[in-house]
């Protein structure tokens, strides 16, 4: 045989699972991100007393497909003096970072892409911050004054909030003791409780930091429409813009997955070790079946025949899913599948809740001004995160060396951190009051040519 073929075949034989998973991620995740966009539009519409996309496909379900097609067939406009190579590279870099980060996450005990990297969490967080490169390159390559300003702002914002988020993750990692994704969730199972109940402030800080990291409202000044500078994405049209946009939503999924893994118990059900709560194992199947029943009920109320069929189709899909989820419970030999299937269900549920929170916050709150944003990151979140790390560390020492009750120790942690938070906010208020009573902005001089 040709000497080069053999090593290649050996490689494929060893790594074919991971390769297939990689291909699936690159193929499927953009589609999922597209449907996440549709979900957001529908949720936004619901909170704003309107309907959202309804035209394309039943209830607007084909909207992402239509959007993708439209963006693909759009004219590709490249600004005159833009650096062509980097202009091409920037959105690709952003999307690549997000997709690669997806490769490190596990949706269930057996759904791993990479073979459980020993620095799993660090890998995910680190690679997803490579998206910064895409933003910076995009701003630079556009050769537009306003794009650079937007890119710089966005970069500064991301860097600041990565720090705060990373520190918050450290508190969780102290409790887990390891960076391996699977081991983190196993540690939570071993503890018998999700880490959020032991270190709630850490999740809270990470929540705010991740909203800022993904450039979502209320931290979306760099890319807001009603701002002077439309941001680093201005000059990108058509599919290049779509890559940026999908990269942002994929980042949301990644960040949600990190939070779920570390704080919300990953693929564990609530109360994972409590025996009398074992009935919770039936919840995934029952939940899906209940959704199916609701669809059947609504199918009767649809005005148009094609809508009735559609609802029935959705109902049948739900019942099929319920069957799959319920199989391990009903058929004894299939019991080994339960942690995997149910785990996937719980994981997806938790990510959905996290992302729902993102969207809810976006529709409700106004936008922070850039200096207020940076102030929040550096003056409030980072000190709070540092104090939290120290407090969790102290609590763990108290538990292991001095034999304190774990819950008592963690309660102490939370109290200390909350006290720090109150102190920081109080200082912030005092500083804001002081600056408002300070000298007013410079008075215009008498001969100002811009008077009037």
């Amino acid at each position, binding site marked *: 045989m040709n000497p080069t073929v053999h090593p290649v075949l050996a490689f494929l034989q060893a790594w074919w699972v991971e390769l297939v998973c990689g291909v699936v991620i690159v193929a499927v995740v953009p589609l999922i991100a597209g449907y996440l966009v549709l979900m957001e539009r529908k949720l936004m519409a619901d909170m704003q007393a309107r309907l959202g996309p309804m035209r394309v496909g039943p209830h607007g379900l084909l909207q992402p497909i239509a959007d993708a097609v439209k963006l693909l067939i759009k004219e590709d406009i490249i600004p005159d003096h833009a650096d062509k190579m980097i202009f091409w590279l920037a959105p690709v870099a952003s999307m690549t970072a997000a997709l690669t980060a997806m490769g490190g996450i596990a949706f269930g005990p057996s759904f791993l892409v990479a073979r459980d990297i020993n620095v799993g969490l660090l890998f995910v967080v680190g690679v997803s911050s490579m998206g910064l490169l895409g933003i910076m390159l995009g701003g630079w390559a556009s050769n537009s004054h306003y794009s650079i300003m937007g890119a710089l702002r966005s970069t500064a914002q991301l860097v600041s909030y990565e720090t705060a988020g990373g520190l918050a993750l450290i508190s969780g990692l102290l409790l887990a003791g390891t960076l391996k994704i699977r081991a983190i969730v196993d540690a939570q199972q071993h503890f018998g409780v999700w880490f959020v109940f032991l270190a709630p402030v850490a999740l809270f800080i990470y929540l705010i930091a991740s909203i800022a990291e993904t450039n979502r409202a209320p931290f979306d000044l760099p890319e807001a429409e009603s701002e002077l500078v439309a941001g680093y994405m201005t000059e990108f049209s058509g599919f290049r813009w779509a890559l940026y946009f999908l990269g942002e939503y994929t980042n949301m999924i990644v960040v949600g997955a990190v939070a779920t893994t570390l704080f919300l118990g990953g693929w564990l059900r609530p109360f994972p070790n409590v025996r009398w709560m074992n009935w919770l194992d039936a919840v995934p199947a029952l939940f899906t079946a209940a959704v199916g029943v609701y669809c059947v009920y609504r199918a009767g109320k649809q005005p148009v025949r094609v809508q009735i069929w559609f609802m029935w189709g959705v109902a049948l899909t739900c019942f099929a899913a319920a069957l799959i989820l319920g199989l391990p419970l009903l058929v004894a030999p299939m019991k080994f599948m339960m942690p995997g299937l149910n785990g996937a269900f719980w994981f997806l549920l938790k990510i959905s809740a996290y992302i729902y929170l993102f969207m809810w916050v976006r529709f409700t709150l106004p936008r922070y001004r850039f200096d207020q944003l940076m102030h929040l990151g550096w003056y409030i979140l980072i000190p709070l995160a540092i104090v939290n790390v120290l407090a969790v560390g102290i609590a763990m020492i108290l538990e292991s060396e001095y034999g304190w009750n774990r819950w008592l120790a963690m309660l102490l942690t939370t109290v200390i951190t909350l006290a720090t938070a109150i102190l920081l906010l109080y200082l912030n208020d005092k500083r804001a009051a002081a600056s408002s009573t300070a000298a007013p902005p410079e008075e215009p001089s008498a*001969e100002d*040519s811009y*008077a*009037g």
Partner: protein
Amino acid sequence: MQIPLDNDLTKRYREQFGAAILDAVEDRKQAYLVIAAAQLAEIARYSRDVEKFDLLEDFTAVDWPRREKRFDLVAILYSFPHNTRLRLKIPLADGERPASLVGIWPTANWLEREIFDMFGISFSGHPDMKRILLPEEWQGHPLRKDYDILQQDTAWVRENLGIESGQ
């Protein structure tokens, strides 16, 4: 409808400025004083400081082309403490440059620019005397009675489109 006015306010103005107050009239229960352009700044300052007309509610002009002094500058003053209004009318000849009221009421800035734009009355002492509503290169002053929009339109079309306007 116009009856001559001789209330306390008019008496005070006449005392202060004598001949500069050319006429005092009440029309449909609204008072106005016709004053000489030369004393505009002093009368304005007096109105604001002594008579407490602290708001320049409006400042505009009217074109009476057949008069010798074709323009009538009209300043509408309002007093918050007294809750009264007063109109000042200043007859101006074409080309005369009245004093700007920006130093007394800063709101006059854009109002005077609009008068300049629409009537061609240039104010002396204004920090930024240029057109405000029409583009910089516009010819003519539209609110003058001898300004014909049709003529302007045909000229523009001829110049910019190179054809004869069909109007």
